[in-house]
């Protein structure tokens, strides 16, 4: 049976004002992302990768076209009404880690679970499990400024995974890391993709990440230049 894609973008356009000039960040992008995919959005800076990721992540709105996430058309839903979708369906990993500085590693991972109103016991088990998965159980009580870049990104991965999302969006997740640490992070997310079946979409221009991606979509000037062969990849 043909499975519905987790993400379906249809003729999506997005234009930003830059001073008096309108910059067309996306020019009619259509893309299906299958469930369980490990997809890299590749392309140079300014090609529209982050904009596309923002639209999929329900933190930005398209000017035209449709955005469907997990079967729900979110195109016309105001962003503030999509907080629950972001909380329950999506996970985010940022280039600059974006941990909450006043919270410990444990509390950062726990934060999305508190938003989900998970019972305390379940929350504790889940946080410990994910800190263990990313190899940071020993650093649970440390704050972000006491952790290395790689450790911070692993906390961010644990935070993104703790809420058991269907889709994790990562914007240049290895850009601020050295190559050894970046490789370890990639090992980790690749393993998580395989073990949990969670879908991952990366915006990247890191060749190492592109090489590991199960599928790769190239972007240039706000358009896809390589059509993804989702069905083939899914098989």
């Amino acid at each position, binding site marked *: 049976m043909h499975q519905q894609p987790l993400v379906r973008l249809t003729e999506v356009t997005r234009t930003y004002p830059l001073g008096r000039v309108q910059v067309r960040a996306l020019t009619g992008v259509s893309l299906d992302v299958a469930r369980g995919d490990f997809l890299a959005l590749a392309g140079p800076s300014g090609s529209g990768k982050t904009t596309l990721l923002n639209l999929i992540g329900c933190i930005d709105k398209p000017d035209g076209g449709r955005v469907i996430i997990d079967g729900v058309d979110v195109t016309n839903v105001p*962003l503030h009404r999509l907080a629950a979708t972001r909380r329950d369906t999506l*996970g985010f990993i940022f280039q*600059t880690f*974006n941990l909450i*500085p006043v919270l410990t590693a444990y509390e950062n991972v726990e934060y999305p679970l508190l938003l989900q109103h998970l019972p305390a016991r379940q929350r504790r088990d889940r946080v410990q499990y994910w800190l263990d998965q990313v190899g940071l159980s020993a650093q649970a009580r440390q704050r972000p400024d006491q952790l290395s870049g790689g450790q911070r990104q692993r906390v961010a991965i644990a935070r993104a995974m703790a809420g058991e999302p269907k889709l994790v969006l990562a914007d240049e997740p290895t850009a601020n890391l050295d190559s050894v640490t970046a490789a370890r992070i990639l090992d980790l997310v690749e393993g998580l993709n395989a073990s949990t079946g969670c879908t991952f979409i990366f915006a990247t221009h890191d060749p190492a990440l592109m090489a590991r991606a199960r599928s790769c979509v190239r972007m240039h000037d706000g358009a896809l230049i390589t059509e993804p062969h989702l069905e083939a990849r899914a098989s």
Partner: protein
Amino acid sequence: MLTKLALRNVFRNRRRSAITLLVIVFGAVGLILFGGYKAITFRALRESTIRSRLGHLQIYKLGFEKAESKKPLEYGLEDVAQLRGAIQTDKRVRMTTAQITLMGLISNGDKSETFMATGVEPIGDRGMNGQRLTAGTDLPEHEADAIIIGRGLAASMHAKPGDYLTLMSTTTSGSLNAIDVRVAGIFMSGVKEYDDRAIKMPLAGAQQLLQTNKVERLIVMLNDTDDTAAVRADLTTLFAQKHWALEMKDWSQLASFYHQVVLLYNGIFGFIGMVVFGIVIFSVANTIVMSIFERTREIGTMMAIGTTRSSVWRLFLLEGLFIGLLGGIAGLLAGTGLSSVINHIHLMLPPPPGYTQGYPLRVMLQPGILITAFLIAVITATLSSILPALKASRLKIVDALGHI
């Protein structure tokens, strides 16, 4: 979690939070000290007004207030003993004393001055004595022609204790009368204008000068000022039952100066309160705005991972509340401590206008003042974070995440 986050964020930029807290503490201390000073001033002024001049209640013959008597004591009380006997059965009443006020000329043989005299019962007057003797003795009990004289008037008359002066006034029948009096003592009340004209003389002497047996008023002193309204109500009932044609005023109706001071001080207190309110508003709002500016990306992250607008709003509101609570508590401690210090070092203030004596600076800590100062700190800090918090909750996530 929001509470934990808010508390930790308050201590995140310690220097900035410390400055904001200091502003709130200064404001709260200012309110506590001025409020405490105001309270003690009101109480001292009230009690000194009652005990030195007015008494808690004054009883007159019915019509006294409205009538503009053509002759002295036209509306005087005739049977004071019976009235006094009825009043003094009440245990809340400390004492009663009769008075006459009169004006006239005082002369030492060489020069004359106008005087304002109060005819008093010497024993009763000592019980509500507001003046301080600077020379001689107080009014003797059984000497109708002794007087004590204000310091300014004594100087003008070149009088000293033991000297004889002549008092001249209009009698109740409208004729002129004069008596010779002995200066028993010289007093000062603290009000120069009063001391330049004032005389106190025994009631019997005043009645002799006015050629009457009447008194102008009966002053009732209570043990506790708080009983004034209740005693007044009971006396009104008593007078009605006995069909006595009397009228009564309480101290509050007579103490116009007290009420002017209360109005003035309340106005100043209100003004200081507004200034504190304004300073705290701007200081806390500035802190929250700076905090939002620095944490824009963090707010974007929180909203991206599912935090709702209302949670972001509540987070910053809580930060304002915590700043207010911490500032309020620190302000209470500092205000209480400083009040104790001020009360212990006996700082003297210069004499107020019209007075010749300074008075000690004292601060009375009342629960009402402490609660008001604390609430102003907390409410102001919380209110001032509303708009910045709203601004934070309305941030566009994409813009916030891209904020550097």
